[in-house]
């Protein structure tokens, strides 16, 4: 009764109020997938409701009021009620700045606000709808501190992983995949890039990049190169028992045409060779190309005049092969057509969830006779028992990729190089329809690149992978959770290598076939106990864990020769009639780790954590298998302090500091042992032939059959090997102003790596198999990185955002044993110590000698003469020699940056993304081709502008003899390779919800996009694309056009 007395007036008051208010109804969906958002908070002045299972809401509000829509992980939205407002259909956008976002950082999840290490959370929207084969390729330039270097091949590096490094290179392993980050996918660690690359972007729930050692040290031994944590969707977060279908599809056309480099035509090449011969004082009609070019000229070496270049009518005098003027780039490359389809089916309720994701990706190849194809599937499921106290489930990724990559010619030159350098006089086809080739006097021994790709067309690389885990979680008592996870990573590669008898030039006189199989199985068993407790203002998290990793790798191969019919269907091992060979090997490693972490926070202001991990690895032999990797971090959320409460302009301010140590074990599995192998000569078909280290010998002098064979030492063991370790200090600040309109973070770090595992070169006298891994060198890397963004919405409904990121690093070697230094740039007077391992060491070019007087006045330089490059006498001893070299820059950039601009207006969205690098010095192959000449290759049009007495230019005088040794490393062609590229431009349209509904869809977005549309570079760099800078062996990065749809049912 008493209650009623109170309630009644309130009800009346409410009714009274309602008279001035109206009911607003509507629906909220996610921009990302068009799904209804359940539980979105809708806040009016007086009341708050949440959206229901279908994303619908109903709320009363007065005209002029502002409705606030907010949801975890989404950017909040404000809508003003007008007299006409009645039904609102809203789209919330995923936010990368939401402070309450929960992220997985190391065997457990934590709130982003509580993070104390340097962790980047990837905005998945930014990497979707990209026609690349791997989410990694879409991350280029998006995450500060994550540096990715790729080429234009479907996988980013012609079948191999692209260069992926986090915060520079820690050790001395160069840019290879020995510096690959550790991927932790659904809690299972792996260093296999393919495990990450083969995930459909649509099935990824989140990607975090752990950059500093304090954040990654929980992963211990393999975390030295940073950690990328991926969590996939499990379909079960929704309260609504509904099946969702999400379908994405795109089609892309790619062309390398805008990036082609000009080369000389047949006649122009002849003219350049004439000029070079005349400059050398040779008779141009008797040099090595005289079978291709004859000249009518005035025979006056002081005032030469060329009247006519006569190109031999046939290549090698073969009447079937008339001379042409082939543009090999046009012949080798074509328009690539890419399709990507991805269907995700998810269903779930409060206790269980299921996600099935099927993908198909096909790239029919920018280069002739190449392709890349992938089928993949993901099945994630989980459920609970005993009132939710027992949770179990599995995550599984299956993928099969099939590809034909670019190849080399029979002499080992990449076809990409040949597309620029092969003589243009060779026709693509002979008149009988077979491939033209460089047969005959005057030609190099390189092959027709298109023919090489043609002969390579059956050489498929197939890879099957299964990756995932089965897990169970038990709430032992309140707040204490035990989790066990069995992770598996299985990959099976099958490479087919068919060598055919070719039509053209120096190719094999017999055919052969090799099938090489590799199998790798990694088994990871992880057990953790977590304890979470809140005592008053204190929060305590404790984690204890154990992890066992068992990796086994084996190879098996078989080969046969002499196949009677050269047909793909006939090439099966049993069909050859020649000598059959087999090979096989096995290796592996084991890891055993214990780890623990304690996190404590007080009053949401003070944060602290301590991590310790102890790792044992079989790779270090018996003396020092264990390493201990501790970390300690502190955080201070200043904006939660009382004294800061009034500073409303600052919505978030957190200081972070951490120190941590991580390890590295990237050495051979058996580095601790001195090993002898029987190397009959079949052991490794991928071995370079010239590395002739066989142990078999025809002692009986019978010339054939099985030979006696023995053993040879292949490596020198080091039982005292121990972990390489990196200790890093990171200081960071996260900030947000004006209610997160301005947001970002800044991190500074300093890392020292010691006991770096190196393999010093040994004196040749010591002999074969004496290379040994030792813990020898030290390195320092310093850097900073920031993210700064601004986003807002105009009253007119245009929302816009601009996000920038930049990262800078400088690395230097701080200690390096004397006997190893020769393996790095520098000389006895210029030690690499104090310089980056990526330094270029060479001569300083200071111009072109214009006349003999200048030559005479200059320090003596062997080969100097008018028209020749002058090099600086840096040590001032009056002569230019090996002691006049200096540091010319580094090949790894010191700054990487990215900028993204996004606009949203009504149903349209538009984004532009660009990224670039600075502080990079690179080899400019086009400058080289435009300046130098030889009798083998083709060159750039720049050579037609070579220096002559009559026309002194800044291009060296053409010379075949090259007596001045101008291909020596110098800043003439190692130039500033900085660039900025507009990587993507995208315009999307979301079908209005009502229209979508009318075609039985929850949402439909269509979009068009352009990739790699524009590049800016330093003018010193003559190649069009500095990203492909150091070699044309890399695929050109093409320009692409994409149309695509994202549909939700």
């Amino acid at each position, binding site marked *: 009764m008493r209650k009623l007395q109170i309630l009644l007036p309130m009800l009346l008051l409410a009714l009274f109020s309602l008279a001035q208010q109206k009911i607003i109804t509507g629906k909220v969906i996610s921009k990302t997938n068009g799904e209804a958002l359940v539980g979105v908070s809708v806040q009016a002045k007086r009341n708050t409701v949440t959206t229901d299972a279908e994303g619908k809401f109903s709320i009363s509000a007065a005209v002029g009021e502002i409705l606030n829509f907010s949801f975890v992980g989404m950017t909040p939205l404000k809508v003003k009620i007008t007299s006409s407002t009645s039904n609102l259909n809203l789209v919330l956008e995923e936010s990368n700045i939401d402070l309450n976002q929960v992220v997985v950082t190391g065997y457990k999840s934590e709130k982003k606000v509580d993070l104390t290490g340097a962790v980047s959370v990837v905005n998945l929207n930014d990497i979707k709808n990209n026609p690349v084969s791997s989410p990694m390729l879409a991350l280029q330039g998006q995450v500060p501190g994550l540096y990715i270097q790729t080429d234009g091949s479907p996988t980013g590096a012609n079948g191999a992983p692209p260069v992926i490094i986090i915060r520079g290179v820690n050790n001395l392993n160069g840019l290879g995949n020995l510096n690959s980050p550790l991927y932790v996918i659904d809690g299972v660690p792996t260093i296999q890039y393919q495990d990450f690359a083969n995930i459909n972007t649509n099935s990824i729930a989140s990607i975090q990049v752990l950059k500093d050692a304090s954040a990654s040290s929980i992963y211990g031994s393999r975390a030295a190169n940073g950690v990328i944590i991926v969590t996939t969707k499990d379909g079960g977060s929704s309260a609504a028992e509904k099946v969702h279908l999400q379908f994405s599809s795109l089609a892309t056309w790619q062309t390398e045409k805008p990036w082609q480099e000009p080369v000389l035509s047949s006649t122009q090449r002849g003219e350049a060779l004439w000029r070079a011969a005349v400059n050398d004082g*040779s008779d141009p009609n*008797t*040099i*090595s190309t*005289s079978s291709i070019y004859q000249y009518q000229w005035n025979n006056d070496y002081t005032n030469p005049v060329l009247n006519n270049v006569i190109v031999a009518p046939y290549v090698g005098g073969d009447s079937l092969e008339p001379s042409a003027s082939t543009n090999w780039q046009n012949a080798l490359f074509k328009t690539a057509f890419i399709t990507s389809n991805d269907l995700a089916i998810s269903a779930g309720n409060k206790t269980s969830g299921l996600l099935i994701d099927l993908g198909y990706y096909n790239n029919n190849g920018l280069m002739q006779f190449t392709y890349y194809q992938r089928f993949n599937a993901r099945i994630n499921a989980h459920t609970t028992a005993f009132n939710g106290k027992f949770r179990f489930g599995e995550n599984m990724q299956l993928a099969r990729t099939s590809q034909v990559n670019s190849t080399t010619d*029979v002499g080992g030159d990449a076809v990409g190089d040949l597309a620029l350098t092969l003589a243009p006089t060779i026709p693509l086809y002979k008149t009988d329809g077979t491939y033209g080739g460089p047969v*005959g*006097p*005057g030609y190099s021994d390189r092959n027709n690149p298109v023919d090489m790709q043609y002969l390579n067309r059956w050489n498929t690389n197939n890879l099957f992978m299964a990756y995932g885990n089965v897990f169970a979680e*038990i709430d*032992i*008592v309140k707040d204490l959770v035990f989790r066990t996870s069995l992770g598996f990573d299985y990959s099976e590669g099958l490479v087919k290598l068919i060598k055919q008898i070719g039509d053209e*030039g*120096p190719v094999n*006189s*017999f055919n052969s076939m090799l099938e090489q199989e590799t199998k790798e199985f990694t088994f990871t068993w992880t057990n953790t106990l977590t304890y979470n407790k809140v005592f008053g203002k204190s929060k305590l998290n404790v984690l204890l864990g154990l992890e*066992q990793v068992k990796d086994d790798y084996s190879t098996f191969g078989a080969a046969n020769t002499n196949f009677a019919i050269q047909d793909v269907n006939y090439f099966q091992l049993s069909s050859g009639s020649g000598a059959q*060979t087999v090979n096989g090997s096995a*290796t592996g*490693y*084991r*890891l*055993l780790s214990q780890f623990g972490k304690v996190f404590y926070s007080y009053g949401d202001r003070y944060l602290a954590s301590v991590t310790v991990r102890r790792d*044992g690895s079989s790779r270090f032999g018996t003396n020092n298998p264990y390493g201990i990797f501790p970390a300690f971090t502190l955080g201070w959320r200043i904006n939660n302090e009382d004294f800061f409460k009034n500073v409303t302009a600052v919505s978030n301010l957190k200081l972070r500091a951490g120190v941590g140590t991580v390890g590295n074990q990237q050495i051979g599995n*058996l580095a601790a042992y*001195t*090993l*002898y192998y029987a190397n009959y*000569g079949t052991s490794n078909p991928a071995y370079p*032939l010239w590395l*002739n280290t066989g*142990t078999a*010998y*025809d002692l*009986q*002098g019978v010339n*054939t*059959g*099985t030979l*006696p*064979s*023995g*053993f*040879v*030492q292949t490596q*020198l063991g080091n039982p005292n090997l121990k972990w390489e370790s990196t200790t890093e200090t990171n200081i960071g600040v996260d900030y947000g102003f004006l209610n997160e309109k301005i947001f970002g973070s800044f991190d500074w770090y300093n890392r020292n790596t010691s006991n770096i595992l190196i393999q010093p*070169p040994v*004196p*040749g006298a*010591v*002999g*074969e198999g004496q290379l040994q891994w030792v813990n020898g060198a030290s390195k320092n890397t310093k850097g900073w990185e920031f993210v700064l963004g601004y986003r807002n919405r105009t009253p007119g409904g245009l929302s816009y955002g601009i996000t920038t990121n930049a990262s800078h690093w400088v690395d230097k070697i701080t200690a390096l044993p004397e*006997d190893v230094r*020769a393996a790095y740039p520098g000389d*006895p007077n210029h030690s690499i110590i104090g310089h980056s391992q990526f330094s270029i060491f*060479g001569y300083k070019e200071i111009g072109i000698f214009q006349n003999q007087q200048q030559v005479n006045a200059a320090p003596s330089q062997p*080969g100097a003469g008018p028209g020749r490059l002058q090099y600086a006498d840096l040590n001032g001893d009056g002569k230019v020699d090996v002691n006049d070299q200096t540091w010319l820059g580094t090949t790894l950039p010191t700054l990487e940056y990215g900028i993204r601009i996004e606009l949203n207006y009504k149903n349209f969205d538009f984004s532009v993304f660009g990224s670039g690098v600075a502080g990079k010095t690179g080899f400019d192959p086009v400058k080289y081709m435009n300046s130098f000449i030889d009798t*083998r290759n083709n060159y750039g049009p720049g050579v037609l502008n070579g220096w002559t007495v009559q026309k002194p230019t800044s291009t060296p005088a053409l010379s075949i003899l090259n*007596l001045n040794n101008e291909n*020596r490393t110098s800043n003439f062609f190692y130039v500033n390779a900085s660039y900025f590229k507009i990587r993507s431009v995208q315009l999307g349209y979301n079908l209005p919800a009502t229209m979508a509904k009318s075609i039985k869809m929850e949402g439909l977005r269509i979009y068009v996009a352009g990739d790699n549309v524009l590049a800016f570079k330093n003018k010193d760099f003559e190649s069009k694309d500095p990203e492909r800078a150091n070699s044309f062996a890399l695929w050109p990065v093409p320009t692409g056009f994409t149309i695509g749809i994202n549909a939700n049912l």
Partner: protein
Amino acid sequence: MKRNRIISWFLLAGLLFAGCKKYLDYQPQGAVAAPGLTSPTAVEGLSTAAYAGIANDWWDAPITSNWEWSSIRGGDSYKGGGGLNDQFQMDRYEQFYLVAPDNNGAGDFGFPGAWIRAYGAISRCNAALRALNAISDADFPNRKSRIGEMHFLRGHMFFFLKVMFNRIPWFDETLTDAQIALVPNTMSSDSLWYKIEDDFQTAVNDLPTTQAGEPGRANQLAAKAYLAKALLYHAYTQDNQYTVTGTDMAKLNQVVSLTNDVINSGMYSLQPDFAYNFLDGHDNGPESVFAIQYSINDGTQIGGRLSMSTSLNYFGGAPQYGCCAFHIPSQELVNAFSTDVNGLPKFDTYNNVALTDADLTTNGVNMDPRVDHTVGIQGHPFKYNAALPYDHSWERDNGDYGGFGTMKELQLATCACFKKLGPFYGTSVNMDVIRYADVLLMQAEAQIQLGNLNAALTLINQVRARAAAISPLVKNTDGSNPSNYKIDIYKPGVNIVWDQPTAFKALQWERRMEFAMESPRFFDLVRWGIAEPTLNTFFATEKLRHSFLANAHFTHGRDEYFPIPQEQIVFTNGLYTQNPGY
């Protein structure tokens, strides 16, 4: 609930402490760890691998054929290939221009690679010797022979290093690898020769006279022949400028004695047909004293342990080959085959005119018959196949290197011994290191220096007589001789005055004709101390015929040997002293 907790904790504790060490113990698969190599099978395997070691090379840095080191640098041949830039480092070797310890950073694997490969082979010998020293004769009955063989192979490789680099680090199996890294190259040239001779002497002492059923192994006579070869080089004493200052009579007497043992053994003789030395089917024949054994279709990856050191030397334009046309006989070498009216070398006038295709015919100028075994000449049977005459169209760079083709190391594309591997070619035909003709001429050389001119005459004439027996294999299809052969033995008082200078000149000439393109030439010139005058004379006339040689010049006191590779000096922290002039 409580029980769950206890179980969990036990589980964790168990994992923490149980079996850690064992779990991390991963043993090598398919390999032998070093201490395991003590069984007789393993010891035999190590010595077999040492044989493989002396043949493990590739055209980029040969240690079997010396064409890159001695033929193109001795005036017998040009580099060849597709222009001067093709394997430019060889162009530098050939012209003695810009050869630098680090090759100006130009990434040359040539002589630095040969250093690494030769020492690699030596390390295999030492590994085998360490194992052999540790095993008993009872456990391993072949122990003594294998010890001798390993000393032989080690001597062979040190000999190669000696003639290439002169001052080299020398060591034996008694040093550990760590100690070897500390051995400088300061041992005197004289001492180095003694060390090399010691290895061959040990081989002589330990080896059996024959290796039944295993002709690939060294035997005692091969060791005697090689010891004689080392002594012959050693006998010409050189000063620091590589000027020959005298001849050591005692050593020359040893050469005579050792070669006599080989000659009188009755185990070796000259092949009746000179051609057999360069043809398939005659491996380990009567003339082969020691040879590198090659094989084909033996189950190895590339289809055989083939002769890949000469694999660049097939013709670029010949359809059956396609690449790469290196190692082109020089005009001067072809001229040197011409003979006078008596069928003797034209010692002083041979190079006055450049022989052309027209001169080299059935009715052309007088020629030593060995020319058609050595040099591909327009219209002449190629490799003993009259149906396949050599043709200029096969030449790859006839602008720079046109005229002739090499032949001795090549085989017909139709030979069962031949394999084409992309642009490269290999055969299973053995490569002789010492053939019996060499034994005869080594003794002849020693006898001349000792003043025994008549003994030398008999030996030289033995070689010339075989050359004069015109091979039925070099006939044109119509049965005629491709060249106008005219050759005779030396007949003192009849066609020659056989005094000491003439005899030595005849010996030098005979070695060149007999072994032309087989690549002892440059090493011979350095041994005799005449590299500088011979090569600069060669360049003076040859550059008029081939303008690419315009900058070629031999510098006495420097160019007799390659530089010590700079990387080796750096890897040893400057332990090695660079050769003079570099």
